């Protein structure tokens, strides 16, 4: 599983980095660098294999029932992306260490950055597309955190939100697309999908699936009309823009196009959708980029335009075009990341990114200027720089439709975009570094720290190396990546600067000369653009849509929620009733209400108890305004219920119900003391009759339902438990074995819930001080004899006995009625008796136990018992048991489930006592406050 480690290392590293950043400001940067190097080291052994075109797939079962695997894949394309992500990531980490100021929290920054790196690596190396989607969404989330890194700024927050809304929405579409794709192929693994291209393209679901997948890719890669989020994401710190918004994350969309190229491409739907989107994005974004005054804004639109170019290449769909697309992914990542870093340096050193203010920086930072010039020349597609090579391949590929009607349009538009690209590249250089002298810069500019330029230098050197010696530098990785994109042989290509005088060269030259002319004529263009700018404002459209969406949601919420829980509950009950009645009516009922199962005879005692139960229940409803009386009646009902459990062969339930009942009533009594003793009549007759009608209907319906079910025969799955309880779980009490063994995971969840309820109650009661009333509602004084001596003496005698009983119940639980739940409750009742009889303070002094710890240890023991079975290579919570012979006592069974039961016991005792003791403490304080009042 070494492959998975490539993607998982940065995630582990994120925690490590944020932990060590407490030790010193720069530790996080070092830590992040080390984590990235480790990931590279893990990759190292696979590199030669991947270069040679070998596809490496590693997987472990994840949800085998659904055929889901946690699977990773390393082929040429994945290798290319992994290298891009890790190498550029390393440079970004170095750069950011100088970019971030003293006030910025480095630990947080690098932790987010590593999280992003891990997610991106996950996209690149996923074999399973659902897993790919999870990483895909993780990049959206980590990008959200990174864009909003400067949380105090409004534009950071709104930019981050917009990016998340657009890419997250695209992610949803992609999920739909992937589900359809999996449905078509019958597998979510890329290997199967890439091999079933013919099946996919001829399936009736092809078009909807394609549109959904493309929506995901286009939103991520900021294609028109979803491009607007990227310029707004420029509120992020510049290292983030350089990394996420030029080199990696926005490439995820085109990566997906490349990844699924063999499966999805080759249809006219693919051609038109992808080509058209790419072409429009290419031209429109390049045009807008010319007019951006913000350095990063210009680069953002240029990025969008280049992404459009790559998309267009994949849309064209010829093997050569796909190869050019992959090549341009590499080139664009290199020159655009360096340009962003250069822009960051300029911003860092001058305090502004506004090209209306920036002038003549050549004098102050010639070194940076030189670096920026090389990168910008590459962006413009000047010969000898890497951008030229892929751009010329692009120009050549646009010619393939030249013989079709309207076929001239594609190369013309491509050349036009080339002209714009040259113009904005020229502007970037001329406007910033030359064009006179700046007068009103916020800071006096000078060269940045030495090491801040190193990452830019490395990338610029790559621009030149690739540009001049393409066959020596980029050829192997390009061939490996292209062959895995095409899933076949790579077309003959010649990575050279000079291909002779051909149309592509002519287009390149036209773009270069045209670009210079456009830049020289920029003044009238700028004034024209200012007038039409508002026409293309997608940000405003997005905000309008979001606003309307919120308004609709508000309207629906206000329609449903009338700000009254009572009313909501009424609507809920009415709804359930309607559903139930409709269900009963709609079912085709041939059998009648009563089934054919034999009925048990009624005996006198049962009848009596049933009568008492029914009367007590009804009386509670009638007399609910007298709260104490209704509480006593509730206790009666609870005891009746436990008798029913006894009758129908459920001794465990009877014991549980009995002890829970005691605890519940004590708790309610304690609470009731502070609450009003009576409920006033509020609802009118009509309202009460309405509620009574609903209640009666519900009760009647349930009665009929129970009757109908009980008179029918049934099949149970319980035979498995009955048969395996003794041989498999080592206990004869099947209910207990189910709880601690077969369904131990559920029980673990349940005691966690109980622990949380206890802690939640503690949180509500902490620091609560209430003055108790000295009289009850009828004006009678409360008895001052708080702890009657007879009860106090008796409970002290009773305690050891009660604890002994609870231990007995705990130990025998595996074989006879009992177990952790019941024993815990019995212990809790025994201890609560002490608190009641002797007072909270008296008991706490003699029983100084921190209940939080008891709960914690309980959960720990239960979890560790489960984890222990992992050590022996069994599934979580598999129980083991053996019989040992103890002297005197005799044969004794020891089961790991007993340790689990001990955990259950501790949690139940801890949670129950935590609740009751804290309420008791409040009572104690309230009595003291009452006394003080009287003395005063």
């Amino acid at each position: 599983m070494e492959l998975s480690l490539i993607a998982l290392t940065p995630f582990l590293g994120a925690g490590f980095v944020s932990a060590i950043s407490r030790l010193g400001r720069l530790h996080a940067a070092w830590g992040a660098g080390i984590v990235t190097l480790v990931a590279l080291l893990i990759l190292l052994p696979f590199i030669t294999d991947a270069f040679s075109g070998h596809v490496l797939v590693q997987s472990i079962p994840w949800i085998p029932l659904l055929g889901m695997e946690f699977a990773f894949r390393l082929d040429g394309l994945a290798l290319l992306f992994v290298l891009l992500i890790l190498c550029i990531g390393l440079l970004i980490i170095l750069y950011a260490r100088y970019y971030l100021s003293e006030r910025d929290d480095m630990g947080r920054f690098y932790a987010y950055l590593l999280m992003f790196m891990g997610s991106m690596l996950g996209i690149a190396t996923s074999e399973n597309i659902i897993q790919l989607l999870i990483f895909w969404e993780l990049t959206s989330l980590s990008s959200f955190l990174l864009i909003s890194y400067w949380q105090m700024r409004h534009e950071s927050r709104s930019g981050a939100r917009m990016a998340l809304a657009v890419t997250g929405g695209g992610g949803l579409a992609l999920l739909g697309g992937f589900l359809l794709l999996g449905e078509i192929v019958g597998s979510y693994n890329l290997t199967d999908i890439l091999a079933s291209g013919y099946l996919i393209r001829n399936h009736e679901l092809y078009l909807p699936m394609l549109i959904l997948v493309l929506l995901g890719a286009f939103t991520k890669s900021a294609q028109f009309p979803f491009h607007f989020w990227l310029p707004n994401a420029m509120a992020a710190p510049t290292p983030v823009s350089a990394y996420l918004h030029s080199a990696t994350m926005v490439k995820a969309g085109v990566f997906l196009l490349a990844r699924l190229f063999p499966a999805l491409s080759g249809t006219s739907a693919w051609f038109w959708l992808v080509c058209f989107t790419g072409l429009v994005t290419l031209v429109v974004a390049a045009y807008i980029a010319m007019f951006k005054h913000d350095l990063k804004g210009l680069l953002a639109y240029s990025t969008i335009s280049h992404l459009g170019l790559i998309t267009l290449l994949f849309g064209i769909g010829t093997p050569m075009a796909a190869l050019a697309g992959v090549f341009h992914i590499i080139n664009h990542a290199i020159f655009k990341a360096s340009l962003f870093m250069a822009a960051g340096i300029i911003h860092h050193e001058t305090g502004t990114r506004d090209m209306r203010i920036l002038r003549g920086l050549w004098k102050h930072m010639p070194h940076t200027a030189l670096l920026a010039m090389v990168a910008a020349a590459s962006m413009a597609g000047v010969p000898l720089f890497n951008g030229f090579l892929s751009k010329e391949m692009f120009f050549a590929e646009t010619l393939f439709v030249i013989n079709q009607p309207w076929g001239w349009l594609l190369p013309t538009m491509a050349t036009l975009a080339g002209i714009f690209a040259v113009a904005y590249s020229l502007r970037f250089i001329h406007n910033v570094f030359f064009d006179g002298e700046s007068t009103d810069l916020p800071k006096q500019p000078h060269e940045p720290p030495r090491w801040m330029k190193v990452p830019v230098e490395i990338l610029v050197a790559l621009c030149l190396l690739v540009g001049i010696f393409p066959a020596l530098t980029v050829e192997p990785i390009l061939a490996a990546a292209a062959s895995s994109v095409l899933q076949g042989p790579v077309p003959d290509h010649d990575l050279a600067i000079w291909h002779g005088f051909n149309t592509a060269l002519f287009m390149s030259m036209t773009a270069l000369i045209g670009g210079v002319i456009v830049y020289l004529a920029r003044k009238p263009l700028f004034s024209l653009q200012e007038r039409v700018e508002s026409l293309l404002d997608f940000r405003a459209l997005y905000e309008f849509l979001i606003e309307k969406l919120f308004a609709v949601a508000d309207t629906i919420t206000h329609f449903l929620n009338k700000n009254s829980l009572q009313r909501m509950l009424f609507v809920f009950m009415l709804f359930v009733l309607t559903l139930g009645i409709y269900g009963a009516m709609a079912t085709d009922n041939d059998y009648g209400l009563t089934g054919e199962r034999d009925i048990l005879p009624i005996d006198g005692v049962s009848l009596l108890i049933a009568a008492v139960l029914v009367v007590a229940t009804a009386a509670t409803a009638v007399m609910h305004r007298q709260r104490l009386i209704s509480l006593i009646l509730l206790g009666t009902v609870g005891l009746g219920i436990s008798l029913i459990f006894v009758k129908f062969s459920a001794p465990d339930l009877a014991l549980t119900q009995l002890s829970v009942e005691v605890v519940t009533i004590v708790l309610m009594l304690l609470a009731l003391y502070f609450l009003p003793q009576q409920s006033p009549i509020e609802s009118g007759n009509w309202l009460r009759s309405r509620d009574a009608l609903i209640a009666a209907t519900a009760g009647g319906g349930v009665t009929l339902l129970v009757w109908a079910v009980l008179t029918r025969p049934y099949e149970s799955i319980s035979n498995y438990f009955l048969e395996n309880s003794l041989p498999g779980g080592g206990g004869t009490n099947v209910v207990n074995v189910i709880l601690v063994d077969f369904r131990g995971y559920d029980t673990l969840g349940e005691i966690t819930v109980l622990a949380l309820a206890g802690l939640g109650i503690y949180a509500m009661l902490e620091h609560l001080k209430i003055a108790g009333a000295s009289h009850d509602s009828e004006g009678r004084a409360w008895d001052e004899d708080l702890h009657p001596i007879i009860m106090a003496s008796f409970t002290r005698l009773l305690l050891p006995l009660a604890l002994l009983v609870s231990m007995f119940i705990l130990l025998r639980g595996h074989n006879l009625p009992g177990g952790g739940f019941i024993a815990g409750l019995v212990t809790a009742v025994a201890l609560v008796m002490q608190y009641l009889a002797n007072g909270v303070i008296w008991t706490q002094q003699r029983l100084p136990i921190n209940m939080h710890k008891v709960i914690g240890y309980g959960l720990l023991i239960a979890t560790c018992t489960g984890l222990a079975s992992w050590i022996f290579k069994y599934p979580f919570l598999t129980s083991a048991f053996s019989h040992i012979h103890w002297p005197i006592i005799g044969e004794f069974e020891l089961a790991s489930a007993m340790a689990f039961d001990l955990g259950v016991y501790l949690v139940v005792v801890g949670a129950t006592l935590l609740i009751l003791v804290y309420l008791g403490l409040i009572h104690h304080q309230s009595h003291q406050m009452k006394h003080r009042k009287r003395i005063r």
Partner: protein
Amino acid sequence: MELLIAIIIGVLTACGVYLSLRGRTFPVVLGLTFLSYAVNLFLLVMGRLTIGSPPIISDKVANYADPLPQALVLTAIVISFGMTAFVIILSLKSFLEMGNDQVDGKHRP
């Protein structure tokens, strides 16, 4: 016997529904308790009624009561205790903070 159980569960449900529709918190807590009684019983009897043969493995018994609903109900009882405790303390807290014990929690003016 089936009829008795059906009636008991029905009455418990009706009483629970009626009380949980009241406007003060205490009756609502009572109502929820009744509803959980009803649900617990309902779950239990879904394994049909069996008298005198608890699901404890021995040689003498041939037809055991269904252990599965029992296991479900056992934890359900404990969880409903947790819920009842939480709700009653919540109602106490809201009474103290708002000065009244109405379900809709109108703040003191």
